[in-house]
């Protein structure tokens, strides 16, 4: 099926074009920075699917929907969650994607379109469930951390130190508790006092790992399991 992308924002257009390129059934036949140009294009061409941004200066996505004829399916994209209710007053709206677009939600929306158009779905590369996040309590404030930003976690008595690139947080908890909040495919406890983010390893030498400027010991009992987890050539 063919589609067009209508969005005044270049980053959003790039993201949508990239996500579409991952779909074997989908071909982008045009990208437009404003609704008027898309409208002119659609007067000459028929497309199966339109990715339409709602908030565009001048001729908005809603103006576009009011004037649109034809049977194209529409996936709306916006950062404004409030627009969702209004959007479903229009025909052919298949899905509503909030920016920044979650690839898994994008995939679900495409499956929905394929179902409507009776197109057999093709298996594509999968994304993990999502960005893993957890909250830490510091001075009665809950601070959200993306697990991917964590370099390593170090036990320090009753506390743990969570090391990020340019910051570290001291949290009153234990390594075993925090371990349950982290995705096990990326984090590994290399020592009774250290959990590391495997993607942050710079090098491994003998029984130590280098992450940033820190040299972290590897327990003898955990070394074999660590090596199994690494993508060794």
């Amino acid at each position, binding site marked *: 099926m063919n589609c067009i992308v209508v969005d005044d924002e270049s*980053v959003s257009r790039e993201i949508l074009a*990239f996500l579409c390129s991952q779909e074997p059934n989908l071909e982008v036949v045009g990208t437009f920075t404003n609704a008027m140009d898309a409208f002119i294009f659609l007067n000459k061409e028929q497309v199966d699917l339109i990715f339409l941004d709602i908030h565009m200066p001048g001729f908005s996505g809603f103006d576009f929907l009011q004037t649109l004829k034809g049977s194209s399916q529409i996936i709306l994209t916006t950062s404004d969650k409030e627009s969702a209710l209004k959007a479903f007053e229009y025909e052919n709206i298949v899905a509503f994607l909030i920016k*920044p677009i979650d*690839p898994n939600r994008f995939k679900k929306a495409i499956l929905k379109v394929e179902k409507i158009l009776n197109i057999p779905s093709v298996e594509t*590369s999968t*994304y993990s469930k999502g960005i893993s996040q957890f909250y830490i309590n510091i001075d009665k404030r809950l*601070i959200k951390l993306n697990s991917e*930003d964590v370099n390593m976690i170090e036990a320090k008595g009753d506390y743990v130190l969570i090391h990020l690139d340019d*910051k570290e947080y001291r949290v009153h908890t234990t390594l075993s508790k925090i371990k349950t909040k982290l995705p096990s495919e990326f984090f590994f406890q290399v020592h009774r006092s250290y959990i590391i983010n495997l993607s942050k390893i710079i090098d491994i030498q003998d029984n130590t790992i280098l992450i940033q400027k820190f040299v972290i010991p590897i327990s003898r009992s955990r070394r074999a399991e660590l090596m199994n987890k*690494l993508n060794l050539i």
Partner: protein
Amino acid sequence: MLMNPHNLHLELPSLSYLKFLSNGNKNFAIKLLQILKDELPEELDSYNKALKSKNYFWAAEIVHKINHKIAFFQMEQSSQLATEHELALREGKLNNQEEFLEIVTKILKFLPEYPEEPHELHCS
């Protein structure tokens, strides 16, 4: 909803969404970073010009665009503040202007100088 200024101050830009989205495609990640690096200073410049000429509607439109970038960097509270600033501008008010500028400055400082080698994108 009232925002805790301390939380806002603590919120840092993150590449976690980019890493998740690009799914290992380094060229795509670098391309997006380059676009962000090129566009954000231009948008900030337009925002300052719009405010100087007291064209608050134009400024609100630019804040809306910049807010996509703030959300891209997973800065939830900062994005909420930008939305409030955008709405204030649409009413001809300048609420949260200083905080908004701080957020943009924080992202500009965070963006790698050489997007072709963002160390955070290196995978194991």
